């Protein structure tokens, strides 16, 4: 989907991605947000279809009232009209907690992903002498370890959807069925991968990623070409484009300065 399609379709890829993620959030859920598009997706969900969802941040803000989009999870905007302003210790404990953690949906991003949804956000190449160094885990490893369900944002490129991660920062389904339990983690894990080309999910039995939907104008073959491992394409549907209502709320209420939408 290039600039031309964006203009034709009337929405950008980032808008499509944000809305695709927002649709994954159920009303009443507790939503863990990282920086950038994941935050915007949570704001969109809250404003569109999940008004009773609770947005919370690893920095300790619980149930933030986001009147302006924050540019980091420590932005003072996340501290406004919360239920409680705590710190990192409280936020991560909420996710590790046996009674609240399984009600949290986490939204993550990464530099690399494998077929089981394991993530790398640390380094490309040799860890001790990296070709490219990234920010590191932040809270991603913690979220991926604790919560019941994660949604992952990715740029859809072959070098990012890889057979083998250069570094496993955040656990997904590890090596398939029973993988998490074998290493001592709880049963939940990655559920959805939202890219700039489509939406991928994980097979219930094999825990392998498959193509669930392409955005309008994108073909399954195009997605396979941009993926470094073989995808099951058979279940791919066409993803419903953003509605006018969704776009309007996203643009006017969530990010009018287009700080995240670009």
């Amino acid at each position: 989907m290039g600039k031309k399609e964006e203009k034709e379709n009337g929405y950008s890829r980032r808008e499509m991605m944000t809305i695709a993620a927002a649709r994954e959030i159920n009303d009443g859920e507790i939503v863990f947000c990282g920086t950038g598009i994941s935050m915007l997706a949570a704001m969109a969900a809250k404003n569109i279809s999940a008004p009773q969802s609770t947005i919370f941040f690893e920095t300790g803000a619980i149930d933030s009232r986001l009147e302006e989009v924050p540019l980091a999870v420590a932005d003072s905007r996340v501290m406004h009209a919360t239920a409680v302003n705590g710190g990192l210790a409280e936020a991560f404990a909420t996710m590790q907690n046996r009674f609240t953690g399984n009600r949290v949906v986490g939204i993550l991003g990464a530099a690399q992903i494998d077929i089981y949804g394991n993530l790398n956000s640390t380094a490309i190449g040799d860890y001790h002498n990296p070709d490219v160094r990234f920010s590191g885990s932040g809270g991603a490893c913690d979220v991926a370890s604790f919560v019941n369900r994660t949604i992952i944002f990715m740029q859809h490129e072959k070098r990012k959807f890889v057979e083998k991660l250069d570094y496993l920062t955040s656990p997904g389904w590890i090596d398939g069925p029973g993988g998490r339990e074998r290493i001592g983690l709880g049963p939940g894990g990655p559920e959805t991968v939202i890219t700039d080309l489509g939406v991928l999910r994980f097979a219930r039995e094999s825990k392998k990623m498959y193509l669930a939907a392409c955005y309008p104008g994108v073909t399954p073959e195009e997605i396979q070409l941009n993926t470094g491992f073989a995808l099951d394409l058979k279940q791919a549907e066409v993803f419903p484009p953003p509605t006018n209502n969704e776009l309007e709320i996203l643009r006017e209420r969530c990010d009018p300065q287009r700080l995240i939408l670009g």
Partner: protein
Amino acid sequence: MKSSQNKVTTIAAAIALLVKDNCHLSIGGFTINRNPMAAVYEIIRQQKRGLHLYAHSNGQGVDELVGAGCVTRLEIAYAGNGRFAPTCVRFRRAVEKGEIIVEDYSNYQMTLRFMAGAMGLPFLPTRSGLGTDIIKNWGFSKELRKNDETLPDHKLVTIDNPFDSWCDSPKLVLVPAINPDVTIIHVQQADRRGNARIQGLTFADVEQAKAARHLIITCEELVEEEFLKRDPDRNQIPFLHVDTVVPIAWGAYPTACYRYYDYDPRYLNNYRQAAEDENDYQSYLDKKIMGPANHLEFLALSNEKHLESLVADPETGYATGLERR
């Protein structure tokens, strides 16, 4: 020192006294908020070298210390700066060039490491890290750890739950405590003895503060002890832990200080751009940081009206409607 009734001093004196070359340092704040920037810039001005720095996600402060060549070893969870730098630029370069050794943890692991230090414990457990390269790959080698008594012998230790299946946790990751030689945090209000009040999120500042052998508190406002004692439910750090108190307005600038001022998007964007180029970065260091003799002169480099635009709205605690592109 910690029992003194008046711990007020200047940032220059506090840094000269407590931040020694090669010491283990921890700074508070998180990415673009409440980093103790006045202290960071003073450390750069005093050309401290060989620092062993601990951070969870303390973005801007970490990147400036790394960029200025003060840091040799870094234990960290996240070196990013929100939308202003998905990966901090000077950090990225320093790692890619092998100029610093990094030990990676997660944010919760780092929080627990400070918490263990604050609690006087050698470690705390968590389930985070199981199955990851955070456990498998050590930035500091076994040999380095063995030969350096300021480091624990292991990066992390995985154990079976000694209480069997209690709490459905068959395995736990133990994270070793951090007790920095010095922690520096920036708070909204403190008194002369060192009692301190943080407004808004505390991040891991309280744990970092209590874990440290020495603690420097910089504050926006020096207030009377009576003022803080009238409402102790709002205070987090008792004077017992504090060595020095440095009143310094705009002490977190260019990062934000909730209820006082917002982060400066222009500064942070310009910083990122300068950081991408060696010449530009050197010129940034020379003109912006080494040029001014102190934080006041540093602030004077910014247009007064621009700074005013960052002042927090009393209702929301940030600069509502600020141009942030």
